[in-house]
């Protein structure tokens, strides 16, 4: 609705037109806020800016970060995926179920569970692309459906007792850095390059700005959209595997509310919920900001739950500031 009233941003790229443009980009503004926040918080407690704490926060961040990458793609195309938390939960359950109840070797169960999660994402994409179901409705339905399958299949039983090697990904280190953080970094680099430097990435922006126009200019809209929802399922499934490896058990309520954390990070990172603009870098800054804000505040003695309030306030404020800046620059341009 409001999209026609807003100036269409050229994919929030500076376009090399002056230093003010770069300074006013959402990523830059966020980054400055992030640096100031970190400096302020580090004066409050000396436990905050330590290598151990930062690495540990990275460990906690990975699952949200993995899911946030495809979510950035999806929101750029003007869609949304609310089912990621449920896909994570379903994957976790299928992993334990495949191993304990279906008698698969654990390696096969992992592949099986990730395949189920990827297929769950494919189903979302298929209905959205082929039948024209609005993404919000489709993924709302599967948010309930996939969670329901996880609950129904698991019958509220959890699976434990995994062998030692299974915990390598979630609890151990590789070259002094939490193993899953490597996965997250690789995923971020690949998705960042794909979004910024490939025709596929440019196509996603085009779809978000004007889907019909993108179709007429020869972009395979249906295939691209099917691909990103399937990718979203895959990443949620991978996050599910890492989650199980990190907490050593499977439960059907795993990942409840994950979609909201992910969407908050993506939107905070400057991706417009209307589609057409956003970057992976912005999402990463959004993710780090939320995680460090929560962690820093709780270390500084703020009661754990006040941090959720602050995340909500920061979210609304940052969108307001961003809207304001966009309108100003839109007016001057």
């Amino acid at each position, binding site marked *: *609705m*409001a*999209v*026609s*009233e*807003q100036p269409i941003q050229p994919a929030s790229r500076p376009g090399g037109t002056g230093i003010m443009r770069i300074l006013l980009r959402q990523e830059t503004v966020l980054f400055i806020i992030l640096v100031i926040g970190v400096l302020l918080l580090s004066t409050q407690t000396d436990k905050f800016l330590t290598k151990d704490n930062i690495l540990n926060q990275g460990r906690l961040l990975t699952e949200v970060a993995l899911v946030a990458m495809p979510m950035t793609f999806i929101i750029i*195309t*003007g*869609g*949304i995926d609310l089912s990621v938390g449920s896909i994570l939960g379903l994957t976790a359950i299928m992993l334990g179920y495949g191993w304990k109840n279906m008698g698969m070797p654990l390696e096969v169960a992992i592949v099986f569970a990730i395949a189920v999660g990827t297929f769950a994402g494919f189903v979302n994409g298929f*209905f959205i692309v082929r*039948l*024209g*179901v*609005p*993404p*919000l*409705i489709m993924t*709302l*339905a*599967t*948010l*309930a*459906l*996939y*969670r*329901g*399958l996880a*609950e*129904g299949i*698991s*019958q509220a039983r959890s699976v434990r007792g995994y062998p030692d090697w299974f915990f390598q990904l979630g609890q151990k280190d590789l070259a002094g850095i939490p193993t899953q953080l490597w996965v997250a970094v690789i995923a971020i680099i690949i998705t960042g390059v794909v979004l910024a430097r490939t025709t596929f990435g440019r196509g996603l922006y085009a*779809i*978000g700005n004007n*889907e*019909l126009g993108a179709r007429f200019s020869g972009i395979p809209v249906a295939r691209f959209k099917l691909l990103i929802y399937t990718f979203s399922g895959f990443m949620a499934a991978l996050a599910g595997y890492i989650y199980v490896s990190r907490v050593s058990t499977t439960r*059907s309520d795993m990942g*409840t509310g994950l979609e*909201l954390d992910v*969407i*908050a990070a993506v*939107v905070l990172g400057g991706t417009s*919920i*209307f*589609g057409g603009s956003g970057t992976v870098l912005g999402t990463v800054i959004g993710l780090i900001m939320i995680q460090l804000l929560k962690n820093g505040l709780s270390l500084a003695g703020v*009661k*754990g*739950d*006040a941090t*959720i*309030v*602050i*995340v*909500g*306030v920061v*979210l*609304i404020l940052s*969108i*307001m500031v961003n*809207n304001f800046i966009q309108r100003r620059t839109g007016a001057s341009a």
Partner: protein
Amino acid sequence: MTATPLPNSTPAAAPAPNRLRTLRNLILSQEGILLIVIIVVMVVVGASKPRFRAENNLLDIFQSEAYIAVAAVGMSILIISGNIDISVGSLVGVLAILSATLSVNGLPGWLCWLIPIGVSMIIGAINGFLVAYLRIPSIVVTLGMLSILKGGMIIILGGTTIINMQPDFFLSQWDWLNIPTPIWLMIFATIIGALWMRYSSTGRSIYAVGGNAEAARLSGINTRRITITAFVINGLCVGICAIMYATQLNSLQASPPVGLELRVITASVVGGVSILGGIGTVVGSTLAAILLSVIRSAMIFIDIPASWINAVRGSLILVTVLVDILRHRQMDRH
């Protein structure tokens, strides 16, 4: 909602002209189908399991999801206006705690009900203001509000259980004419909501704004005022829902009811409200809430574990949406 123009979404799906409004159309409307499904499920299960059709169970079916239906009245109006509220669960949690705390501190029952409803309407007005004047999408505003409310609630009460409310507090446990108050509230909210949406100029304007905001604005409707009104009405319904929720038991857990917003949105969508705005009725969402309750009760009687209820809910949304799409395709063909 989503600004992407979906090529196959018929704008505001023009209802068939009045002369064609035969019985067939009435039966094939979303409300008609829901009513038929409710009756079929009740007859089939009731025929094989006599205890299903016992008076107690029937009252329980209508009562147990009544607060969902009341919240869904507001949600439907909000979605028809082209917006959405995903913070309902957290808001109900906060308001319920507020209400119970007031009662523990000795306030008379009616004040313990009215104050949270007022607070809820104010929060609705704030949401509406942010959406209408600062042009922040409603899903983002209410996502932020969800965090604020959820965090705020735990700060205030930190997961305790509230007991010792005054005896004049428990609205949901009372009867009138042998029918529990939640059922009355559900009926009143639905009738008033349906009449208001159909016959008041504000109600008609909400359809117009949700169908095509720009066209509504050009035809002289104050779209900002309408948006805020829709949010305030939603706040009113959420407030009533919270009171019904808070007063049904003698103790109240200070944690947000899990997945409540999902159940409310499910009722609206299954009831035929289009997420793109402009289409749907309040009656449909109430019937959908009742249907979900009937199904949940039927599942118990035919020995399906209750843990499958979310899978059933999700499938029901999918079926509804698919039927709707097929129906539109058929309409386009004629």
